[in-house]
């Protein structure tokens, strides 16, 4: 993600693409959480043994 404002805009696009219309305050409230979780997800994807099925 880029700057904070562009990140909020990106989140808004994703939300509106799913029919949800959050406010700027809503998106700012969730931004830090998403910023923490996405790198953790990426790290997990790298470490997860390839042969592991759901």
């Amino acid at each position, binding site marked *: 993600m880029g700057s904070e404002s562009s990140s909020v805009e990106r989140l808004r696009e994703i*939300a509106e693409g799913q029919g949800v219309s959050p406010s700027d305050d*809503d*998106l700012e409230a969730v931004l830090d959480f998403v910023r923490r*979780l996405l790198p953790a997800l990426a790290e997990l*994807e790298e470490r*997860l043994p390839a042969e*592991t099925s*759901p």
Partner: protein
Amino acid sequence: VNDDFNAFLHAESAEGDFTVAVKDVIDVAGMPTTAASKILRRVPERDATCVARLRAAGAAIVGKLNTHEFAYGALTNSPHFGPALNPWNPKHTTGGSSGGSGAAVAAGLVDIALGTDTAGSIRIPAAFCSVTGHRPTIGLVPTEGVFPTAWSLDAVGPLAPTATACRRALELMAGRTLEETARDLRIGVVTSLLERAQPEVAAVCEAAIRDLPGTLEPVRVPLHDEIATITQLVMLPEATAGHLGWLRTRLADYGPDVRARLLAGLFLPATAHVTGLRARRWARQEFERELGGYDLLVAPAMPTTPPRLDAVPATYRLDLMPYNSPAALLGLPVTIVPCGFVDDLPVALALTGRRGEDGVPLATAEWFQKVTDWHLRRPVDHASATELYTSRLAQPGRG
């Protein structure tokens, strides 16, 4: 009901052999289900399966209990219904999301309270209110008639004054007897959770652990930090999917924290849930490989005593995750048993069993409660109540 702790959202008089109140995400015929929200308003015609089984065994269902909005948080401070207050000190949180359940039992308002636990929601209030609670093995108690938080993690279980009462209620809800064993156990002590806990809490727990019946060995949970992330990857998309219709039409009617958490689920890539499910299998394999030989794992239930309602740390949820996520993700049974106090606030142990062996942590808690009296201490004067629950619920052949 003389409810000084905002434990109840709805109460009725009812006749029966023992009293039960139900977290307000669980349907009771003829009583409103709100999930402590502004959005959900339904009056079901049928009891949830777990409620129907208790009613058939003689339970008087006396009301619906406060919860974190939609059971999606760890405080029980719904902006629509107000916070549940901790009977040990009303300035402190009950924890959540089953905070009304913890408060109602601690205050002696009911014999049994039902809660739900997706990622700690029975265990946190049981520990913070100094009552016994049990998160069952996933699938042991039917969730039909329970408003879901995250389908693959949700479990329904009892909170009660004693482990014996919890076991009896669980047997009724599960429809079968649980095996009882609490001898010669191989017990793993999760040292990392002792190390992360507030020192005073850790000291109380270490003293209690020495009383347990078995051989104690220090252990570490494999992939412990990763398990918190994996739990989020499973829980967030499931919770958000369950609320998507209302997110589109009623977004402003959610409280701010639940709204943020539900929105977060929209922003994970489509692969995240699948990665979470794959990683859950990986974590389960590692857990079985390293800890499968232990009958029981023991750790502090929570890293701290319940925080003040007006001073909840910003890291509150994150701090609790290592204590709650492993059993939630892996579907393991956990019994919470009171084991002491720090500054007059409750401290408890978490006894985690193997999947499907709910009788082991429960029997161990029963054993612990025969040699200690922490579970008998009450914040208000209802000392005789524990004898009543035990005598009424432990009668052989009941139900």
